[in-house]
């Protein structure tokens, strides 16, 4: 990978480690300051191009760019020329003409960020494309795990829920296995993608059996808006078999942590008591998201061509 961040699969271990170390440097640089801003990207323009609703990712990227003093232009599909029928290419050419140094894109079509790189001179950052990837989410998850557990290599991580529709799961599988973690996917058979047997992961249908053997359990949101067919009989049955409630959480070993990329549906995949428990790092994930995105923007936008070699 070089100028763009399109996929966690493009990141080798050294580059991914550099991003996490830089994020930690950002945290140190931001601590105890009177001015909560760094001048690093002054005069650069970061465009947030969001074709799908996403409050937390958009706000996180916006905060990251602003803390580095970049100018931020937010372009959401609703109420813009996109809703009047402008094509992705024409939008890209418009952004190109405006001189965007980086474009952060979220799109419902897998591969849209990759296509954008053909029309833009600036860096493209994938903020979630269809069911493909969401690399900065995986990076912030890895950062959160590393900060809490001190390492990633050899950790046992369970990713639980709607793996089929989850770009978060895909990016996390790539990144966590790159770091040498052992990943187990836990989901009903209908919510696992075809070809999952070729992934470098274990697969289980039995959450209760997996929980005592993991250091990290990552709950995925049930993406009801993506479900045209019925993948499970009822929300209640899903919640009973794959939801993380207090009784299930008690099966986790000593220091194990609970993660959720958000937005979470309390009472569905995760019980409110679990989300608010001491094992939960869900709030840390949000705070770390800004740091990791600062690191990514810094590494992509410094130098003529970017330096995430």
């Amino acid at each position, binding site marked *: 990978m070089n100028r763009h961040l399109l996929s966690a699969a493009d990141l080798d271990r050294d580059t991914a480690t*550099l991003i996490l*170390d*830089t994020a930690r*440097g*950002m945290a*140190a*640089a931001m*601590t*105890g*300051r*009177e*001015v909560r*801003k*760094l*001048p*690093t990207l002054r005069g650069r323009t970061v465009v947030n191009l969001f074709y799908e609703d996403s409050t937390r990712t958009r706000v996180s990227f916006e905060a990251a760019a602003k803390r*580095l003093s970049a100018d931020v232009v937010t372009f959401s599909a609703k109420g813009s020329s996109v809703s009047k029928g402008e094509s992705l290419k024409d939008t890209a050419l418009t952004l190109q003409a405006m001189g965007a140094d980086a474009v952060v894109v979220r799109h419902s079509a897998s591969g849209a960020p990759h296509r954008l790189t053909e029309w833009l001179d600036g860096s493209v950052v994938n903020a979630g494309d269809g069911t493909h990837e969401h690399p900065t989410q995986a990076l912030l998850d890895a950062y959160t795990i590393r900060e809490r557990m001190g390492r990633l290599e050899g950790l046992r991580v369970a990713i639980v829920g709607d793996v089929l529709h989850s770009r978060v799961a895909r990016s996390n599988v790539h990144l966590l296995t790159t770091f040498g973690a052992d990943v187990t996917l836990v989901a009903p058979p209908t919510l696992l993608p075809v070809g999952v047997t070729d992934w470098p992961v274990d697969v289980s249908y039995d959450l209760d059996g997996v929980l005592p053997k993991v250091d990290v359990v990552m709950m995925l949101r049930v993406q009801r808006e993506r479900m045209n067919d019925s993948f499970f009989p009822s929300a209640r049955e899903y919640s009973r078999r794959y939801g993380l409630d207090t009784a299930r959480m008690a099966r986790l070993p000593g220091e194990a942590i609970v993660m959720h990329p958000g937005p979470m549906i309390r009472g569905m995949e995760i019980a409110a008591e679990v989300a608010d428990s001491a094992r939960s790092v869900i709030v840390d994930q949000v705070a770390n998201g800004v740091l990791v995105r600062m690191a990514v923007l*810094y*590494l992509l936008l*410094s*130098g*003529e*061509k*970017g*330096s*995430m070699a």
Partner: protein
Amino acid sequence: MAEPAHDQAGDTRPARQILSDSDISRVIDRIAHQILEKTRGAAETVLLGIPTRGVPLASRLAERIAAFEGATIPHGALDVTLYRDDLRIRGARALGPTDVPADGVDGRRVILVDDVLYSGRTVRAALNALYDLGRPSQVQLAVLVDRGHRQLPIRADYVGKNIPTAASENVSVHLKEHDGTDEVLLSGGAA
């Protein structure tokens, strides 16, 4: 760092030792005394080292000042990478540590510590970084080596050794904490 301290240009001339390990410890003792003299006991003073090699220098200075006067003065690290003026030209670099003592810098005398003073650009970046942290009452600069060739109106308050150099030469500072040995080498230059 005023320059990559361990980056030796491909050259034919052998490196020349400018300061030995005992020279370095004498120089640090002297700067510690000068700080005590000039600041009348170093009250309300914070030492901030600029990574990489300014950080161990700041901690050694704090240790010597404590040994001479029994005064503990807080010391830490101030990374300036995100404030550099050459990020667009030279690309992103790994960030160094930033560790500011708990009481901060407001109303205190801050002494910035670096290994080599060269163009002055690192110190410019450090001043900007410092003023985003708070408002010191005074800022001073201590360096182990001043090699000249300033590109900005910046000077040091405490200098370990002035070394006249050519721009083509390379000053390498080695410190035990990072390099296993204490010495300053001069290499390169027109043969």
